[in-house]
């Protein structure tokens, strides 16, 4: 039968993704070593899980690393499969994981590039490298509120233009604003948070 619907257990909220390091005997793919050599400081962390390689890149190196991955002949990641974000609210170093799923049509290999950002940290937009990122970044902005700097058309895409709040965040209620929207369209989220705090007290 259905689980307890909207309210997940308040205790033990996970603090971050599980990113197991690759075992010592795993062969690091050539494109990752190329990236490590090509753009120094770009690989902050490397992870291998279920056959997928994930590279954590600091925000400052994102554009350079992406350009390298796109242009370098050994990497040739010309296809941006997906661009999404995950919200880890209690995490200290930044609540959002912005994840880029890259694929190379030439070499047929995949890599996941991850960037960890705080709520208001701008992330450089990769639309100049992969035009496919245009709508994908718009959706991440719409759903999470991640600020993509340099995006040609930074607007909401799925929600109405004047919507308040970022629905996919963990602190956004599943049932949405409800009647609060009717009372006070602009500040309904603040109203709700104020009411919740009042309830707790």
């Amino acid at each position, binding site marked *: 039968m259905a*689980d307890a619907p909207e309210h997940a257990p308040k205790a033990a909220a996970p603090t971050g993704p599980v990113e197991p390091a690759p075992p010592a005997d795993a062969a690091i793919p050539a494109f990752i070593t190329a990236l490590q050599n090509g753009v120094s400081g770009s690989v902050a962390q490397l992870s291998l899980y*279920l056959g*997928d390689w994930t590279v954590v890149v600091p925000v400052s190196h994102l554009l350079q690393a992406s350009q390298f991955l796109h242009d370098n002949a050994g990497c040739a990641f*010309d*296809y941006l499969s997906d661009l*999404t974000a995950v919200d880890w609210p209690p995490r200290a170093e930044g609540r959002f994981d912005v994840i880029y799923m890259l694929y190379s049509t030439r070499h047929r290999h995949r890599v996941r590039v991850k960037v960890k950002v705080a709520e208001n940290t701008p992330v450089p937009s990769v639309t100049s490298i992969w035009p496919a990122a245009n709508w994908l970044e718009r959706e991440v902005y719409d759903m999470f509120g991640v600020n993509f700097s340099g995006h040609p058309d930074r607007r909401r*895409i*799925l929600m109405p233009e004047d919507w308040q709040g970022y*629905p996919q965040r963990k602190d956004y209620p*599943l049932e949405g604003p409800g009647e609060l929207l009717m009372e006070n369209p602009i500040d309904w989220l603040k109203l709700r948070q104020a009411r919740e705090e009042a309830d707790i007290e």
Partner: protein
Amino acid sequence: MFDTSELVINMGPQHPSTHGVLRVILRLDGEKVVDAEVVIGYLHRGIEKLSENRNWTQIVLLTDRMDYVAAATSNVGYCETVEKLLNVEVPRRAQYVRTILMELQRIASHCLWVGTHAMDIGAMTVFLYAFRERELILDLFEEFCGARLTYNSMRIGGLPQDIPPGWDKKVLAFCDIMDGKIDEYETLLTHNRIWLERTKGIGVISGPEAIGLGLCGPALRGSGVARDVRKDEPYSAYAEMDFDVPVGVQGDTYDRYLVRMEEFRQSLRIIRQATQGIPEGPIVGKVPRLIKPAAGETYHAIESPKGELGYFIVSDGKSTNPYRFRVRPPSFCNLQGLPRLVRGHLVADVVALIGSIDIVLGEVDR
């Protein structure tokens, strides 16, 4: 002396040819489209957020509702991603039946595509013929899982029930019927002079540009890029199947049409091989009663009729719901290319191009 300005026309959310609630704002110079802006979100139901509050088995029926034209494919994509997270092996019999169902679904989806595309361009009879064949497929699905559109036909680890006796004979009989019907559609359209004039040279996009724009599926293959997840990263029983991937040359609407028509035939080939070779065995693998994958995240992609359908699922190892459920919808990424395709063409071509990209709004908006 005369000041001409651009006309802005709204191809509104309610329109017979946008195949769903899609809004396209066109800026016209006379009859030429200068620019197009696509507005989506009318069918946004928050499936990703809903899934964070449903347990792993319940999400299967949410995935039906995204690409409702090819629901079995979405089911399989999700189940395979969770099976990857759980590290569970799906028995070969289930793999084969899944492959048959997915290829049947591909034919059904392409039937709907050819019918609506032809109808938008004016050949209304093809619509009725294609739906007649789609009915046969829907009957097969109904016999298997009881539903015609939203199947909920996959479980994590396999299938909820085995195929009914005699079902594989019916599938083979259907394949024989379908061969002749594909020829029927081709007779009506492929060498028809008016069809050629309406589709050749419309919406040309080159391979590298299509890759950059993130197009996938037949829209990408029509431009000459041989990218098919079934061949590049085989899943289910595709590694054991013998089939070709049709690739276009010029990247116009006619090539995308030819690619999909050939995909019909290749799907029939796969179905015949799979049906004739279904191994015996269990229909569901060893899956724990309460599904709780270990903490971790993964991305898995399959080839839906529209393109690369990917699922990115994050599990936190403790709760019975996923932590993050992300669908990479092929129609969303393909629709992104519409403004680029439509630029420079006439208003009457916009409808042909929307049909050529083959979108399902349920998937675009989720």
